[in-house]
């Protein structure tokens, strides 16, 4: 019954055409703008973009924060996912609901909360001084630390959710088997759990990394002009300086970064499997 290719085509055509014309094409035209020099195609715009020390700094900061946020989410994510998988199924649903909640709340509201918490007179500083961990108020707002904290909060739920479903699919007895065969907890994790949940980790990692390097509100509000990331730099170049060429260069860098992360992590996952 489902053999007719024409029906298949007719069903996918409206959406595909809509996205090709209204999405893929405009984006490609924008990206191609970064490859146009005075005399045709060239990498001129990239050379000039990276010749500016500020732009290099912003590029490396974006990569650095992306990697740090991804690693942190992976480590904390495994711990939290293990704990969730070990609870009774009834509690599990509620816990997952709690994890989804922050994903549903406006990111503007989320970052706004951190302004109140991370300020010099905010909760964190009150706690640090109350516990005697700091002599005076510590400056947290408008630092990379603030952006890091904001990004981890933003993306940790995605990592935990993917790891929970990966761990749920883990055969119930593999860990017991490994333990019976004399493996330590760390060994069990590295040799057994990690390879078997590799795919979840890769999916979660990709979501977190690409999300972190392309986040806008968090660096804009918590980092400000002294902690620019690529996306805030793009907005500033385009909107304030009217510099479309730099804008399309940054756009191309971000798209390439998202895409290669996807491919690279998939490759790593597949390679480890053999």
């Amino acid at each position, binding site marked *: *019954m*489902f*053999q007719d*290719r024409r*029906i*298949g*085509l007719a*069903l*996918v055509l*409206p*959406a*595909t055409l809509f*996205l090709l014309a*209204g*999405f*893929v*094409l*405009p*984006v490609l*035209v*924008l990206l191609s703008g970064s490859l146009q020099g005075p005399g045709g195609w060239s990498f001129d715009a990239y050379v000039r973009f990276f010749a500016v020390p500020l732009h290099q700094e912003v590029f490396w900061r974006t990569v650095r924060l992306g990697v740090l946020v991804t690693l942190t989410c992976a480590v904390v994510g495994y*711990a*939290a996912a*293990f*704990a969730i998988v*070990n609870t009774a199924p009834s509690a599990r*649903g509620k*816990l997952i*609901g709690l*994890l*989804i*909640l*922050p994903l*549903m*709340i*406006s*990111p*503007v*509201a989320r970052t*706004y*909360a951190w*302004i*109140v*918490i991370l300020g010099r007179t905010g909760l964190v500083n009150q706690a640090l001084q109350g516990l005697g961990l700091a002599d005076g108020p510590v400056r947290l707002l408008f630092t990379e630390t603030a952006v890091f904290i904001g990004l981890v*909060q933003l993306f940790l*739920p995605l990592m935990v*959710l993917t790891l929970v479903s990966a761990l749920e699919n883990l055969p*119930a007895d593999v*860990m017991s088997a490994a333990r019976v065969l004399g493996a330590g907890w760390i060994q069990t994790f590295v040799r057994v759990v990690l390879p078997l949940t590799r795919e979840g980790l890769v999916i979660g990692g990709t979501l977190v990394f690409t999300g972190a390097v*392309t986040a806008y509100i968090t660096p804009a*509000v918590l980092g400000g002009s002294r902690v620019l990331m690529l*996306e805030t730099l*793009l*907005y500033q170049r*385009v*909107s304030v300086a009217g510099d479309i060429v730099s804008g399309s260069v940054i*756009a191309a860098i*971000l*798209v390439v970064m998202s*895409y290669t992360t996807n491919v690279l992590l998939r490759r790593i996952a597949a390679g480890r499997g053999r």
Partner: protein
Amino acid sequence: MIRLPWMRIGGWATLALVLLFLIGPFAVIIGAALNAGTVPAFPPQGISLRWVVAVFEVQSFRASFFLSVWLAVGSTLAALVLGVPVAYALARYPVPGKEAVRAVVTAPVVVPGIIVGLALLRHAVVPLGVPVMEALFLAHTALLLPYAVRVVAASLENLRPDIEEAAVMLGATRLGAFLRVVLPNIRNGILAAFILGFVTSFNQVPVSLFLTGPGVSTLPIDMLAYMEFTYDPSVAALSALLALMSLAVVLVAERLLGISRFV
């Protein structure tokens, strides 16, 4: 799996910390919203509802709230109308260039939002003179399409094709079989896609950043603009209201559909 007592305790402690980190800030924002003073602060200096009331008096918030709601409903519906057939075709039919179609349909997820906004502004909206509202609608529809396809596809996977075949053999048309047999069975998937799409559109900032225009602004963009010029707890109050609204959505969705399966 082996459970040792120290693992249980450690596990609960980790979970508690993670949840505190993820959800605690919203408690803070609710506290700051109830602040009686003139500036946002936590712990609040006296409890009052004055800023919650103030939110409803800011004219631009009201306008952009309704605009955001309509935009979210409209673009989610449009994404479903375009996306459900794609999910269905990919699940059932031999589509020529299946992988290419899949790539195009998931493309909006790969491209960062701010780039989508900029590309559409410069290479579609401005040269063609598309009005602001229509531009926002088209951009949000494109953005939501991948979610619609993915979530509906997930619920189609659990539906065996042979019941449709049976319906057709019993004399139903293909369309009739789809409407009477398939649609009721993937209803929950569509509802889940609708909720996810609504929330994604409603909270969207980067795509809208370049596309809003005179008199047409979405709520989150309006909040950012308000924060640019005014510093009082009304943004905290509005944030708190939005957080409570999201909580209600999550509770209802979880109760009705178990939405956690689709995220």
